[in-house]
């Protein structure tokens, strides 16, 4: 068959028609596409996760974080209102705030002492009126210099259930419309208004494209295969009931599963379909206590495109913030939390079950590993493509997990946005 070998290094991604079941490697390897993604997904028309209200409980509290690759400050002002401002001084562009958290009455850039209110308004600049010497005034800012025109960039803010989102785009739709009713249901299930209790952070740097972490939590194909720990100790069972749901744009998703009800709870932690005789030496890792707010499902993993994953896996709950850094790496920040009505035993249970997750987690450490080596494959031959054809080539909600429909859905949306106007 006389067929010319395709270029290993194509100029642009080549999709197979209108479908998204074959994903060009180059969507993970191109700096140009990465910058367009930042523009179109992180800086325009989208909301990004920035943190939890419980991280800044007091007036003057702030937390430094990012939207996309831009440094921002999440802050509670003197009246108690929440603001998000860009950590770039209006004068010389310095990322002036170096602490990651703290309490301030104002923000001051150390370079030339420009000072800002907690909501980002410029309060004053040194030598604005110049310096009087020998009867004349030297220097100073021009007479028409307007403090009001030179504040920090202020982002639009939306809070829901104790979670804070921000957007550089003040014309962005409401957070509720953005998430959409199908996924909002699962958002509100987790963040139902109870006060949150921060348990702590894990931070890891994963050398892979940021989208791969979204895809990881849109891929129910791998958990029972990669994470043999799940199977070995009975958390991933053939009789689990499952559903996959998306918003109308297919950008967000929820993977909902309910542990099989056959057998007693103690059997669920001990019966294994993989290594029949395996038991934990210390089964407190899986000391699962159902909570009323679950309303049935024992695990709901929600992906909010593009910036965050909301985790409920039995008693362990966390947010996982995706912070891109170039096309080939992202920082991944886990914030584990509990609820104000947790007793000491429940807090300890959540901390113990956190051993399953995070950069050392029994069922998470290996996710970072496979992402790193997928990226290696992509970088070596960007003209090739990945497959997402389990369960067909279509996009739609399902009542089972044997499908890659959520990944196809995300790329349908990706193409709509990224190919618009080309």
């Amino acid at each position, binding site marked *: 068959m006389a067929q010319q070998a395709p270029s290993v290094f194509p100029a642009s991604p080549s999709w197979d028609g209108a479908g998204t079941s074959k994903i060009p490697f180059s969507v993970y390897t191109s700096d140009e596409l990465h910058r367009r993604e930042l523009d179109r997904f992180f800086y325009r028309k989208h909301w990004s996760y920035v943190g939890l209200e419980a991280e800044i409980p007091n007036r003057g509290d702030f937390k430094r974080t990012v939207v996309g690759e831009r440094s921002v400050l999440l802050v509670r002002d003197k009246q108690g209102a929440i603001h998000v401002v860009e950590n770039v001084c209006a004068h010389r562009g310095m990322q002036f705030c170096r602490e*990651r958290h703290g309490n301030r009455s104002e923000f001051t850039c150390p370079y030339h002492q420009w000072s800002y209110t907690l909501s980002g308004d410029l309060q004053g600049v040194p030598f604005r009126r110049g310096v009087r010497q020998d009867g004349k005034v030297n220097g100073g800012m021009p007479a028409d210099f307007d403090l009001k025109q030179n504040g920090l960039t202020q982002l639009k803010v939306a809070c829901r259930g104790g979670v804070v989102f921000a957007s550089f785009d003040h014309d962005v739709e409401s957070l509720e419309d953005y998430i959409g009713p199908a996924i909002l249901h699962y958002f509100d299930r987790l963040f139902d208004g109870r006060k949150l209790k*921060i*348990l*702590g*952070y*894990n*931070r*890891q*740097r*994963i*050398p892979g494209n940021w989208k791969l972490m979204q895809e990881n939590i849109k891929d129910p194909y791998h958990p029972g295969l*990669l*994470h*043999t*720990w799940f199977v*070995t100790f009975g958390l991933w069972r053939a009789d689990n009931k499952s559903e996959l749901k998306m918003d109308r744009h297919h950008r967000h998703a929820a993977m909902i599963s309910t542990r099989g009800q056959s057998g007693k709870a103690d059997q669920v932690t001990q019966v294994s379909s993989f*290594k029949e005789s395996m038991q*934990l*030496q*210390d089964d*407190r*890792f899986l000391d699962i206590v159902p909570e009323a707010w679950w309303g049935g499902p024992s695990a709901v993993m929600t992906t909010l495109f593009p910036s965050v994953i909301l985790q409920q896996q039995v008693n362990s709950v966390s947010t996982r913030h995706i912070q891109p850094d170039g096309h080939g790496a992202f*920082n991944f920040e886990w914030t*584990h939390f509990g609820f104000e009505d947790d007793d000491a035993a429940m*807090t300890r249970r959540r*901390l*113990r079950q*956190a*051993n399953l997750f*995070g*950069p*050392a987690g*029994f069922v998470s*450490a*290996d996710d*970072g*590993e*496979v992402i*790193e*080596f997928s990226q290696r494959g992509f970088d070596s031959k960007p003209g090739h493509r990945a497959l997402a054809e389990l369960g067909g080539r279509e996009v739609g909600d399902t009542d089972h997990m044997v499908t890659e429909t959520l990944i196809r859905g995300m790329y349908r949306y990706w193409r709509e946005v990224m190919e618009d106007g080309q």
Partner: protein
Amino acid sequence: MTMKTSGNATAAATGRGETSPALRLGLDPQDYLELTQLLATYAAVVDAANWDAWCAMFIDDCIYKLIPRENFERGLPLATMDFESKGMLKDRAFAIRETLFHDPYYQRHVVGAPRVLEVHPDRIVCESNYAVFRTKLSELTTVFNVGRYLDTVVRADDGWKFASRLCIYDSEMIPNSIIYPV
């Protein structure tokens, strides 16, 4: 200077009016010697990936935690690894061998001299700095994790063992994942 084997060695030990904290606290030099050997053995055991020997260095009712310095200093209880018994250590050893897919790597510990903080009959609290280097196959060696151990060791029938080992790490970003105990 001669090595004394009895406790309560005081200012005479240094002759400079300054005593090391270990001696001032009444630590028997023999115990200090055994403590340094315990820490050196731990490094050798984890660098050799001998996970059974790693478990055996702890008492049954032990604590092992790998904690970001940020959480430790802010009083946040979350740990990256949070084990509360030797059984949990054995479960980790099983996961390393049987269930956790990972890129194989060597680790190499460099551990500083222990700074003794408390001396009790049959129990010592101490801290020591550590640096762990990671070497992956076909890759350059990198600095993997840096921090300090905060240990409580106790005298058991067959020598000193860890009752508690907290690995409090400065490293802000874990380079992808941590599979083996530090």
